[in-house]
């Protein structure tokens, strides 16, 4: 089923399979998260209160400041990171942070990836091919 495989730009990091957590909202590690508890903490965020730990996090665009570049590795080291970060549009900060953290990341799909995948879907992210596949 071809509609189960979504093609993005070649990404960063290793291949991973995990459950998806999806919202049509944006992402910043500093602005949106309680990184100690591993949950979204910004009241206005559509995922506020939800845990992102171990999930393939699928959101619209990277937002916010530059701190996320350090924070992704710090979160990964504490095993409090998402399994992968999938965005419609990454920005340099997220790419830099993913590279530094060895965290899988893919962006720039043919269409809105937050509409293609649903929360709870099990997906495989393959950054070398730039793909997200629903299993």
């Amino acid at each position, binding site marked *: 089923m071809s509609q189960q495989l979504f093609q993005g730009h070649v990404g960063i990091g290793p291949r991973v399979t995990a459950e998806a957590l999806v919202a049509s909202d944006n992402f910043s590690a500093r602005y949106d998260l309680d990184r100690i508890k591993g949950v979204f903490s910004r009241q206005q965020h559509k995922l506020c209160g939800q845990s992102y730990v171990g999930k393939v996090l699928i959101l619209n665009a990277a937002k*916010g400041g530059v701190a996320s570049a350090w924070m992704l590795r*710090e979160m990964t080291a504490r095993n409090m990171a998402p399994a992968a970060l999938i965005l419609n549009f990454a920005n340099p900060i997220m790419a830099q942070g993913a590279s530094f953290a*060895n965290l899988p990341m893919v962006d720039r799909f043919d269409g809105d990836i937050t509409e293609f995948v649903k929360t709870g879907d099990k997906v495989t992210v393959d950054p070398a091919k730039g793909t997200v596949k629903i299993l």
Partner: protein
Amino acid sequence: MCANLCDAASAILKISAIEYFEWNENMKLTDHESAMLAGEEGPARKYAMEQVVNVGQFFDAEDCVEIAQVHLMADPESLGDECVSFLEGLAELPEEERLVRAPTITDPRGVDLQAYKRLKQTEEQANLERRSIAAFRALGVMMTDTCINYQTIMPPVLGEHLAFGDTGSSIYANSVMGARTNFEGGPSALAAALTGRTPRYGFHLDEVRKGGTHFEVDHRPADLSEWGALGAVVGRQMQSYWEVPVISGIDSPPTSDELKHFGAALASFGSTPLFHMTGITPEAPDLQTVFDGPAASVPVATSLTRAEVTALRDSYWPADDRLDVVVFAAPQLSLMEMRTLAGLLKGRRVNDAVTLIATTSPEIKSASDRMGLTELIEASGGIVLEGVCFYQMYAREIGEANGWKRLMSNSAKIVNILGGYGYEPMLASMTQCVDSAVAGKIIGSAL
């Protein structure tokens, strides 16, 4: 000896863990860059070159560009023990392998070591700060601890390629100075420092710097908080990092501080690193030039009225007048802002129920000391901090430790950030902030 040391450092750097690293040869590298990538100049430059190539490939960069200056964001809250240990691993390498290759300066730190106990920051936080500073010094990084480096250290120059960290500092360098930088988060700014280069993509390229969206402003913001609010209104409409807003209708040059607050808010709300202001910023002499085409190609402007700008400011206004802390920061205060603040506080007393904090750079703090401004602010009960910025100094923890929830500031940027940190932030003019700090409750009302 060196081999062991390098192996140990490699282990700390976890370079061997980056198994996925693939250089697809689409990105052209010089012999020197290839040598760094191959590890011939030690593990630090290998990590740095891998970081450069990884990010470069992700954004389809053709090659690298040499950079003139690096601005490094690395406060201990963002670093955590993991990234501080990483830096300490670099710091243990032999000097020829670890020293930076471009002038490298730092963004505000997280702990003012002269004042942290007053703010109930912990020894653990201070120690992480001390360890980071020691590691950066070993790498040859200059601890300027400022986000207003374009006002105080070395202003960028038109066309100069940079690797700047703080979003406010980057957007000012790109927009007001016409220099060229992407947002370089800490790990990438450090990579740029260690290699002297950054991938040539994004805002290093002419075509990316062209105007994208057009806003026509029908008024002039009245104070710094309104300049910030205007930046916030534009920023909220930005869809991605790559969208370049063009603002027309500002009839005469704003001050550096006004552009600083406008840009910092725009970058914070919008995550975009460049704006043009026609007739004001160097790459926007007129609309046709900035949109790079005939008059017909200039997009129809979205009108921005004063009502929209004040509505953004008022949207943060609370229902009651309770006040815990007043903060002037983000960006750090210029000498002019310190002078204004000192003038507003002169002969008055901050209410005991409220804490008033101003953060500035070490250079401006020193000038303020010399000119008696620090004394005026502190005599009124205000606290002047140097080399830090409020949101980067464990804002959540100091808020909880000091019982601060309702926060008032004239910085739209800090109001945006602190909503995620457990505060109830609100935006007001510096005058309203000071009047409220003195009264011990919020004075005035939404406009």
